Structures are given as C-alpha cells and as structure tokens.
C-alpha cells in the first residue's frame, strides 16, 4: 500500500518536504489550520495566539500532567485561504534555530486534497537533528517505562 504521508529529505540538503493526500475537501483541510479550536484538537495543543494575516503571529503550548512541556511560536508571512501559508516556526527554550515553513494546499478532487510542507533549516546538521527527535523521544519514553519497571521491582523486594 502506498503511504499517505511522504517525507523527502535528500542527503546533504537543509530542507525537508512533507506531502500528504487527505480524504477531505480542500476547504476543510485549510480550516484545520485556520481555526484555533480545530488546530488544538488535531495537534493536541493549546493555541495561545493565532493571527492569520501577513505579519501576524501565532503561539501554542502543549501540557502534560498540568505542566507545560512544549511551547512554539512564529510569524506568518503569507496567508492565502485555501492556497498557502508561509510562516516561521520556533521552539521555545530549546537550542534550535528558527525554521521557515512553506505550506501549500491543493485541491485534487471535490473530496480530496493535498498538503505540501516545505521546511527550511539553518543547516543540514540542524535538519538531521530535528528528524531524529521522534526517535530520541521514543527512547526517552522507553527509559521512563524502564524506570517504572525498576521501581516497581524494588517495591516488591
């Protein structure tokens, strides 16, 4: 089966291209990015600010067990409904430079649409580091689980 989400990260380039075909009309796909309440639902985050206009800004934060664990923000440079969003993206409290994101929304049929996300990084090294984050997180989760197991074991003794 062909994968719905594709990631193209060429060796030695400081960019990533993510494409995804959705089983949704173009307008609905765009709405998922435009409406804070909807964005919150699929990103599992809390929108603090979302000014969808040229030179507007946005920020959101993600909490776990009542503590803020992740916060990101950026500036919107282009906002053309049902066509494109150009914005910066910056993770707060992390030694990671701001990245530039080009989002393009396309209609495929009346019921399907496509999103192309073109992300540019400060360097190849930073790009590669970002791509490894989900893996690092997986290991981190495994580590937490391991600690749980170990402390459970210790309690049994």
């Amino acid at each position, binding site marked *: 089966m062909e*994968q*719905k*989400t*594709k*990631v193209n*990260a060429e060796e030695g380039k400081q960019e990533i291209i*993510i494409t*995804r075909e*959705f*089983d*949704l009309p173009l307008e*609905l*796909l765009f*709405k*998922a990015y435009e409406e804070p309440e*909807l964005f919150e*639902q*699929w*990103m*599992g985050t809390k929108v603090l600010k979302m000014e969808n206009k040229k030179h507007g800004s946005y920020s959101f934060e993600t909490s776990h067990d009542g503590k803020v664990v992740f916060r990101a923000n950026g500036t919107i440079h282009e906002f053309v409904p049902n066509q494109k969003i150009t914005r910066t993206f910056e993770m707060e409290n992390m030694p990671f430079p701001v990245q530039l994101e080009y989002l393009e929304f396309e209609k495929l049929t009346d019921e399907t649409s496509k*999103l192309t996300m073109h992300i540019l990084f400060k360097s190849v090294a930073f790009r*590669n580091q*970002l*791509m*490894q*984050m*989900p*893996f*690092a997180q*997986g*290991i981190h*989760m*495994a*580590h937490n*689980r*391991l600690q749980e*197991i*170990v402390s*459970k*074991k210790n309690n049994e003794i």
Partner: protein
Amino acid sequence: MNLRRDVFQAIADPTRRAILLLVASQSMTAGAIASNFDTARPTVSKHLQILTECELLKQEQNGREIHYHINAKKMKEVADFVEPFRQMWDDRFNKLEAVMKKYQKK
C-alpha cells in the same frame, strides 16, 4: 528494504526499546536482562532473538555464558532514518483527517 522495515518493527515495541536501553550501558546475559522485566522469560528471549536478528544486538560468547551487547553502528543507522519522523507526521495528519471528518458531519 525488508530489513529496514524489520528494524522499525523491532524498535516499535516498548519492551524491546527498554531492552536496548538496558544493554546500552553494559553487556548482559539473557537472564540478567529478563530479571528487569515482569514479562515471562520466554517472551524476553523472543524479544532478544528479534533484536539480534535485525542486528541491533550482538551476541558474544563469554565462557559458558552468552552476553548481549548493543550494536552501536546499527543503532546510529536507525537513528538516521527518516521513518520515525514520517510516522510522527502521519499520526498527526491522520488525527487531522479524523477531526475534520467529524466536524464535517456536524
């Protein structure tokens, strides 16, 4: 190509990731590894077999005992792969699709 998928199936399992983490600091026997888990010993053996088959772990004969240690080269290779990143976005977009389908029905 097949191997690549197997590696990701191997690290998709939380117990297997915990094993990798455990063995990362020092080589251990199967028994020592198993003693860290509530899971039955044969289950841990199965996990070790999978991790060895896809070369994330290496076996080393040490007298009568077999020690498992991590294959750092293979681990690095896996970390370089795009797949976990792709999967993260795929999960996110699947969620978007589900949220918007529900919204559409309203």
